[in-house]
């Protein structure tokens, strides 16, 4: 069972990292547009 | 309508005449095909493959040789025009679809000539026994047509891109892979006398060739017009 939680944790971290990256990119682009 | 056809034939005839004079593309096609065939025949020959694997493996080998020979020989049909600066003249002299049809016909003739030479030789050298020989010709014809249609439009694209060799193969081969899978299965089916599978493959081949024909006919004028 802890294997599963481990994989879920990894997936969560990947998602959080991806979201943070795209979010920052989005903000940077917004600033460049204005 | 017949005027359009006559013009297309004229474009093809011009290219074929020029080609038979210098034989650059034909040489590339023939040399590549024969060399590959020799290599395959030498290493594998008629005896090495187990009987139950032969129909499938020999189909694969045949079409790989045909496809790669085509990639070696068919890239120049438009590049020639750009290089010798006859392209602008051609644009003036004929409607875009006429040029497309003419070039397609030209590529078709080259492929059929290649197949006429290669297929019998392959069957003899590799001991490829075909249960339904006439349907085999049909598979070759339709497959060859599909090959010609796709390579023609890709050749038109890369002639505008003005780079050498490799881009043609890079663009053509992935587009050709679905067709390749279908014609290999069709060939395996005719080798084994599997009528049901042949019919299904034939339908798939014709559908793909048809779709590509219609889409190319629409897209070619756009590529050519620049």
């Amino acid at each position, binding site marked *: 069972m802890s294997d*599963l*939680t481990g*994989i*879920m944790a990894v*997936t*969560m971290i990947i*998602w959080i990292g991806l*979201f943070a990256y*795209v*979010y920052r*990119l*989005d*903000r940077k*682009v*917004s600033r*460049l*547009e204005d | 309508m017949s005027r359009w056809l006559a013009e297309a034939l004229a474009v093809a005839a011009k290219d074929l005449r020029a080609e038979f004079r210098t034989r650059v593309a034909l040489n590339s096609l023939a040399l590549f095909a024969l060399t590959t065939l020799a290599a395959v025949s030498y290493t594998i020959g008629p005896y090495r493959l187990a009987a139950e694997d032969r129909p*499938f493996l020999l189909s694969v080998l045949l079409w790989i040789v045909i496809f790669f020979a085509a990639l070696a020989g068919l890239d120049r049909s438009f590049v020639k025009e750009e290089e010798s600066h006859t392209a602008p003249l051609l644009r003036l002299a004929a409607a875009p679809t006429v040029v497309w049809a003419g070039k397609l016909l030209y590529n078709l003739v080259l492929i059929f000539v290649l197949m006429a030479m290669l297929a019998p030789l392959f069957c003899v050298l590799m001991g490829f026994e075909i249960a339904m020989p006439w349907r085999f010709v049909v598979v070759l014809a339709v497959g060859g047509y599909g090959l010609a249609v*796709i390579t023609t*439009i*890709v050749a038109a*694209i*890369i002639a*505008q*891109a*003005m*780079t050498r060799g490799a*881009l043609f193969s*890079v*663009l053509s*081969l*992935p*587009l050709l*892979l*679905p067709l390749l*899978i*279908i014609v*290999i*299965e069709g060939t*395996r*089916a005719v080798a084994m006398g599997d009528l049901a*599978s042949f019919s*299904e*493959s034939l339908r*798939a081949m014709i*559908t*793909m060739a048809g*779709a*590509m024909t219609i*889409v*190319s006919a629409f*897209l070619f004028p*756009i*590529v050519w017009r*620049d």
Partner: protein
Amino acid sequence: MNRVGFALKWFLFVWMVVVIWAAFMWIPSAEGFKGESSRIVFFHVPTAWVATLAFLVSCIASGMYLWRREPKYDFGAAVSAGLGLLYAVLATVTGAIFAKIMWGAYWNWDPRQTSITILLLIYAAYFALRSAVADPEKRATLSAVYSILAFVTVPFLMFIVPRIYFSLHPDVMTNADPDNSLDSAHLIVLLASLAGFTGLSVWLYSVGTRIEKIRHRRRQEVL
């Protein structure tokens, strides 16, 4: 970034967090699947679906470019093709992981794996073409033509080739996605994941096209 956009993005974030949690914790293990491999389906199917959608958008944007000749359609076509490629890679990877758990091998060229590989090659070639043409309008035109040609093969790859392929490889294990007996809980999470991935790609598409617009604007200013 405006209010609505801000809210939507954070909503997406929470949505996917819930989907991930649900996929691993809320859903029980599925029968007929080895180990916990059924959970991968929640990520594999949406990425494959969104990839196809992205390629379709690229084809449509290409058609729009050829019709209207506005650069924004070229941006859309290129960004979409790139997203499609990205999602296709993800679909391939998740599919390989699934194959490993279910059948012991990451890769055995089953019809789906073959089709997705061909798709990857086709759209990788799209970017090879783009990088080979210097003039922006010519690049846009030629890659638009190719994008349309490329999408013609997609229905064949998705439907016809797998059937034909089975005749070629009858010994291939029945690798059809065993998702035909989905109960409602699985279906809900799958659809939710699909919605989330679609939302994510809409966002990525918008960011990508905005970046291209800025690049384009910069180039115009230099001239």
